């Protein structure tokens, strides 16, 4: 029976640079997927592209691809599917092709999937009745239109399948739903129709389980301990069959763990109603999924079914929403937590006396339970805590001024104040998230095989 092994070597931009290389080397993969785009990553990439039209993609991917070339040379059938293209899939794909060519792999075709970027025609969409209203509040996008920096539809698996059918060995996409990176190869390999919703749902389960990388293989597992060997954690592989069933596993000899617990935790990760997990390809019902331990670091997964399909794509809009900064100091000694909170109040008081109040501010005594403020209190007295103060405001200058108010506490604060080693904290731009829907008929995914 035909089996297709899809491994995911990257769960977000910032994930391990070594994982994709190790997974491709040891995973006996047919496909390596690399997922780089969190909800707000596109806004960061959009700003990069504004400054430099050649930028705007997840540049880590090109470093990874360069390191992958010896493996690709040794495994001529290994294909790579990634959404690293971000706001500039064509630019990213072109660079990827150049890397392959320089490594003597110029015969490996690179395809680019685009059409997700709605910014160039955002006003036309709004004018023609696509309100892009906020999914939660129902507010029209017009309310923040002048601050929007990016608006991308989550495309599905079909253009990836088409790119593979056109002979692509490397597929670089813009915004595509994470699970679709896996659904696309499965549909291509097994010849599934995009009307075969149960198969798409089953593959969506596979894609969902592996999309966050090591979160399926021991990372974040509540029962992870020293024996789990996270220092050598293997990344996840879905070994798929034509009927939609698959085995979740990881390369032999790696650390981490794959079992029913790790799989169940990941199955429900970032899910609302598990009976209706919306993707561009299908509405998947995760409540029909069966997980069974199938030997060491292997879980047999079956039963994911479809609960329909929508005629809309989800759209992720990001808009500018001021500036923020957060700084820390260490407070040691008796009553450290209380002193940390007072120190934070002192910082804000001094700024108030200087005429500055902020749209939002937050003080934490980390070590005393403030990570989940008011819910979980630490028992017993910590020897020291980290004082963390953060502010957000529309005025960049006010936030800049805030960052200069930490160091004075080293001499004018409570005894035991230390830890001022990293200098003034950086000011960052804040992007707010605006989820919306758009009719599929208003979006045209494009596939281009690069010459």
């Amino acid at each position: 029976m035909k089996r297709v092994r899809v491994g995911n070597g990257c769960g977000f931009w910032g994930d391990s640079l070594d994982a994709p290389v190790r997974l491709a080397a040891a995973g006996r993969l047919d496909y390596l997927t690399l997922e780089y785009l969190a909800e707000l990553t596109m806004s960061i990439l959009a700003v990069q592209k504004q400054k430099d039209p050649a930028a705007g993609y997840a540049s880590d991917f090109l470093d990874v691809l360069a390191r992958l070339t010896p493996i690709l040379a040794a495994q001529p059938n290994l294909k790579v599917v990634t959404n690293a293209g971000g706001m500039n899939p064509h630019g990213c794909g072109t660079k990827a092709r150049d890397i392959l060519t320089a490594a003597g792999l110029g015969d490996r075709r690179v395809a680019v999937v685009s059409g997700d970027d709605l910014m160039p025609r955002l006003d036309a969409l709004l004018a023609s009745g696509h309100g892009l209203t906020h999914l939660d509040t129902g507010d029209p996008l017009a309310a923040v239109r002048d601050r929007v920096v990016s608006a991308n539809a989550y495309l599905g698996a079909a253009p990836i399948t088409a790119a593979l059918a056109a002979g692509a060995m490397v597929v670089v996409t813009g915004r595509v739903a994470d699970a679709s990176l896996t659904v696309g190869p499965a549909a291509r390999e097994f010849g599934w129709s995009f009307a075969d919703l149960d198969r798409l749902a089953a593959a969506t389960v596979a894609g969902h389980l592996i999309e966050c990388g090591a979160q399926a293989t021991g990372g974040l597992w509540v029962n992870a301990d020293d024996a789990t060997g996270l220092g050598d954690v293997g990344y996840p592989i879905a070994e798929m069959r034509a009927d939609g069933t698959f085995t979740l596993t990881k390369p032999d000899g790696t650390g981490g763990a794959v079992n029913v617990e790790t799989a169940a935790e990941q199955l429900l990760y970032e899910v609302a109603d598990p009976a209706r997990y919306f993707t561009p390809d299908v509405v998947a019902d995760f409540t029909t999924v069966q997980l069974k331990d199938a030997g060491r670091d292997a879980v047999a997964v079956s039963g994911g079914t479809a609960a329909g399909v929508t005629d809309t794509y989800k759209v992720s809009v990001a808009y500018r929403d001021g500036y923020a900064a957060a700084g820390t100091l260490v407070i040691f000694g008796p009553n450290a937590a209380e002193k940390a909170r007072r120190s934070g109040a002192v910082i804000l008081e001094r700024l108030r006396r200087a005429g500055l109040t902020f749209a939002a501010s937050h003080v934490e005594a980390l070590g005393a339970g403030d990570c989940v403020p008011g819910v979980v209190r630490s028992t017993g007295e910590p020897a020291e805590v980290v004082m963390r103060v953060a502010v957000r405001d529309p005025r960049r200058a006010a936030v800049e001024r805030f960052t200069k108010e930490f160091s004075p506490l080293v001499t004018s604060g409570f005894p035991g104040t230390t830890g001022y080693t990293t200098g003034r904290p950086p000011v960052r731009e804040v992007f707010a998230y605006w989820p919306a829907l758009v009719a599929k008929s208003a979006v045209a995914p494009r596939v281009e095989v690069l010459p």
Partner: protein
Amino acid sequence: MTPLSRIAHGRSGDKGNHANVAVIAYTDAGFAWLREYLTADVVAAYFAPLGPARVERFEAANVRGLNFVLYDVLAGGASRSLRSDTQGKTLALALLQLPVELPADHTAMLRGA
């Protein structure tokens, strides 16, 4: 009173300004008990200091799971939130520390039972 973590594990994450907290029982007996005890109201009361607008509970009995969606609980969510935990990563471990009164004989609910 014992922490919920005696009979369940879980994971939490974000969707914009909302968080989901999945609680997964180790055994069928534990799931049957959780289903009765761990209502959306109990979870809403526990997380009240974080100010969720509302809490909705979903079931995934196939994995002995209860999935709670905590709306507008992340103080703005990724990028906007000023908390250390902008994305609700800690909420599952926080909920697993919920003190609960298990039945006197709860061995059938424990991990590995």
